């Protein structure tokens, strides 16, 4: 029960601090808000402020429990002193008694389901993989830590700042409860909006449609960020609507804050900024009012919340929007090929046709990571709401915030547009009894015991109300050991891997319960190179069995280049070794040589290291003009070049160029003599030595990772020994 207390304390402190900071802002600005909505909007706006405060504390190495406690207590005390706890403003129109019963039953029932799931031991995939991993790092280091080996460490983390605040007291579940606090707040915000604009029934129905949807329920009950983002977007929409009604310029402050905070939560929510600015510009232009100053105020405030993240990434990762835009911001941290592949996967998941999307999103829930429920088959009817202004506003917001879905078809990526859509649907079906019936039917169909009767077994959804787990009557470690394999990996790693040591892994195991860094093959460019090396040892088509020999008239050159001459379509350009000869003798690589490559200059040494398991790769489709270059540091006689390469993705279209002593480049030859020399020896040790050379002594190999059988059956050929076999993975020590 002690653990449960800390979990609740951490999450409640975060909630109360956010509420207080937002309340202080609302009172300081003397915003004219209605009762109820004042608290709801204050919480969401305050969460942005608290996130900003935690960011500052992280940059100043003050991210400590005591400091968080002080921030929380001072904020709460200040809010009480200002009378924030005493609501002001006129009450909203009352809710009809029959709706109160429906809200009480549906909201109450699902709140219990969500609350206990949020409080239960946290074992969400993305929570374990990154949302809670980095708060853990920051908490232990009392501030930001540069983590170039994991691309998720360098996306915006606005909500993770709140998680960190709660994590300091109650660890993982406290963070999940912070997300739950947004889930529990947003429906009331939607209801308040409905009451404010005179569509109470639609607002209530829309709120409940949203709240009980399975994917929203599970997402909001774990340490994800989608529901928090959605709350922020809806609060932004709400403030914009109030501004449209009141034209009070003080409202531009929360509008700017929330627009910026949206981006700070998730890159894809950058649309909040043009949406807010576009809305204001349109309204001001139509009213023939000055545009520039209000827009500058909103944009400026938004930037206050956006820039810190961009600057952090620029300083640490050379790319403000890492892990994207790698063609513009070329860095050694993320490969272009990874970005291309990542985007491709996100656009399709495991679908074979986009026509499967409606079925997956509403009923099956397997392929797209969750479902909204069959009610959403009626979603197109929401367009009927376009008959009036309120409906059009809702539909516009829904359309704007649905746009990122074009880049990621996962169900979660539709959550930000869902509250607008569900209220619009409520407006379209504006017969009270029909709405009530639909709410009850949707709730019934979304309850875990009913859901499992029609949705896919592997659909992401809640399964029960875990009261004993939440209250820690079942100890957390016992529950996680039995239900969450990543916990077993993490425990094994903490038990066997010494502090400070690194673990290499081919797949993402979930690392929120270990303090040792795990380098996952596909989460950074250097780790991807290591994976390439390890696979080269066991896949003959990746081994340098092809020799391209270029012979030309002996001449003296200062520099020598191997240049790609043809487009390789989607294939990468690979060079395992580049050797230079004079009169049939290889010219030894001298220390005065200087090597260059375009693209991917950072890996050029891999083509000159005499290792058959390493290779320079373009890590993007091969294009004419790409080159590897040797500057000999003086005149050098040469008459041949040998390129050792792989039969996979192979294209021999290259030319050899030389720069003479006058600085002029000339083509020496374009003709290669190709021969095959299959590797007939074992490269496993060579590969493992590369891993060791990069500081790794441990590998976590999943049962289904490529090559897993080889590590298990041939450990002595690799020079590794089994340390632990837990969950679905094995931990090996590199001897």
């Amino acid at each position, binding site marked *: 029960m002690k653990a449960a207390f800390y979990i609740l304390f951490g999450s409640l402190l975060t909630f109360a601090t956010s509420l207080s900071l937002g309340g202080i802002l609302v009172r300081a600005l003397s915003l004219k808000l209605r009762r109820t909505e004042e608290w709801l909007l204050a919480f969401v706006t305050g969460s942005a402020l608290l996130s900003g405060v935690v960011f500052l504390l992280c940059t100043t190495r003050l991210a400590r429990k005591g400091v968080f406690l002080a921030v929380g207590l001072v904020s709460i005390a200040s809010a009480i002193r200002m009378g924030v706890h005493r609501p002001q403003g006129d009450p909203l129109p009352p809710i009809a008694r029959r709706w109160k019963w429906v809200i009480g039953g549906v909201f109450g029932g699902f709140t219990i389901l969500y609350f206990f799931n949020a409080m239960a031991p946290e074992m969400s995939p993305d929570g374990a993989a990154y949302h809670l991993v980095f708060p853990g790092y920051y908490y232990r280091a009392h501030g930001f830590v540069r983590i170039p080996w994991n691309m998720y460490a360098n996306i915006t983390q606005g909500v993770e700042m709140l998680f960190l605040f709660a994590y300091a007291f109650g660890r993982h579940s406290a963070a999940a409860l912070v997300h739950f606090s947004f889930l529990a707040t947003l429906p009331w915000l939607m209801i308040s909006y409905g009451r404010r604009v005179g569509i109470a029934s639609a607002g209530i129905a829309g709120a409940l449609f949203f709240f009980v949807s399975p994917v929203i329920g599970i997402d909001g009950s774990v340490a994800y960020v989608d529901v928090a983002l959605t709350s922020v977007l809806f609060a932004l929409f709400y403030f914009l609507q109030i501004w449209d009604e009141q034209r009070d310029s003080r409202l531009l402050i929360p509008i700017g804050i929330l627009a910026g905070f949206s981006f700070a939560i998730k890159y894809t929510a950058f649309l909040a900024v043009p949406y807010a600015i576009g809305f204001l510009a349109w309204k001001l232009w139509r009213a023939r009012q000055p545009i520039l100053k209000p827009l500058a105020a909103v944009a400026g405030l938004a930037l206050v919340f956006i820039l810190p993240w961009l600057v952090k990434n620029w300083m640490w990762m050379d790319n*403000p929007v890492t892990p994207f835009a790698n063609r513009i911001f070329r860095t050694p941290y993320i490969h272009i090929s990874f970005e291309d592949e990542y985007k491709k996967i996100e656009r399709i998941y495991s679908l074979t046709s986009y026509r499967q999307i409606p079925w997956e999103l509403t009923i099956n829930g397997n392929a797209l990571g969750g479902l909204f429920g069959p009610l959403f088959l009626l979603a197109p009817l929401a367009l009927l709401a376009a008959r009036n202004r309120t409906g059009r506003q809702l539909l516009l917001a829904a359309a704007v915030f649905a746009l990122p879905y074009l880049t990621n078809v996962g169900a979660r990526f539709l959550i930000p547009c869902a509250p607008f859509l569900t209220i619009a649907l409520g407006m379209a079906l504006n017969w009270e009894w029909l709405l009530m019936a639909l709410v009850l039917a949707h709730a019934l169909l979304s309850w875990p015991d009913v859901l499992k009767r029609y949705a896919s077994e592997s659909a992401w959804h809640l399964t029960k109300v875990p009261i004993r787990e939440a209250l820690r009557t079942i100890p957390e470690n016992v529950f996680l050991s039995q239900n969450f394999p990543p916990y077993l990996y993490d425990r094994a790693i903490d038990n066997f891997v010494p502090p400070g040591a690194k673990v290499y892994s081919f797949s993402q195991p979930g690392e929120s319960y270990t303090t040792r860094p795990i380098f996952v093959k596909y989460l950074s460019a250097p780790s991807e190179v290591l994976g390439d090396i390890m696979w080269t040892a066991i896949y003959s088509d990746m081994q340098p069995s092809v020799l391209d020999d270029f012979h030309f008239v002996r001449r003296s050159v200062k520099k020598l280049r191997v240049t790609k001459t043809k487009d390789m379509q989607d294939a990468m350009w690979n060079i395992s070794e580049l050797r230079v000869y004079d009169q049939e003798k290889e010219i030894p690589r001298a220390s*005065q040589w200087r090597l260059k490559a375009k693209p991917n200059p950072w890996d050029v040494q891999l083509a000159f290291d*005499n290792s058959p398991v390493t290779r320079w790769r373009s890590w993007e489709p091969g294009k004419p003009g790409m080159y590897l270059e040797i500057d000999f540091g003086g005149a050098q006689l040469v008459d041949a070049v040998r390129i050792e390469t792989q039969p996979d993705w192979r294209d021999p279209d290259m030319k050899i160029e030389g720069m003479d002593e006058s600085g002029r480049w000339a083509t020496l030859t374009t003709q290669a003599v190709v021969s095959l020399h299959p590797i007939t020896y074992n490269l496993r*040790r*060579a590969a493992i*030595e590369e891993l060791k050379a990069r500081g790794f002594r441990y590998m976590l190999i999943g049962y289904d990772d490529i090559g*897993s*059988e*080889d590590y298990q059956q*041939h450990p002595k050929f690799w020079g590794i020994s089994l340390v632990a076999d837990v969950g679905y993975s094995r931990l090996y020590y590199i001897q």
Partner: protein
Amino acid sequence: MLVSCACERTPESYPPPEQRHPIEGPALNRASMLVNMNDEDAKEHFVKDISDKLEGGSWRWTGKRPTVKILLVKTQGLKLTTDFTIWEGCLAQTGPVHVSFFIGDQLLGKVRYDTPGYKHFVVPVEPAYLQTAKETIVSAEIDKVYKDPQDGTVLGFILSNIGFERQ
């Protein structure tokens, strides 16, 4: 600001790195849970009734109950699979044959073959029959074997591979 961030900050050049002198070992095929008869290390998996002689670069004669041992990487989500051929001459002597497939002593399936030629057998395996701590024994038993009338040589069938694949 975004545009200024894109200014080229790539390194100019690098010196040649330390030269590697890789430790080489004997050639070794990539390990798998499926034993191909032409794998470099195939013989290490043989328990009994499989010829030492590789024929045609890809297959071996078996005796009555060819048996292999395989160290499994996992127990869940696996299927037993084998590719083999019933020799026409064998069938002519014995008539239709039954081949039974086992993990240890556990019978997974029994199939009657009336015709000669290439055969493929695959069946999902209960995790309870498998283990990862030590090798799993897999076998296929033919009920009637061919006996060479001249020298009495016993031949079962022609085996190309046997083992496990992920489902």
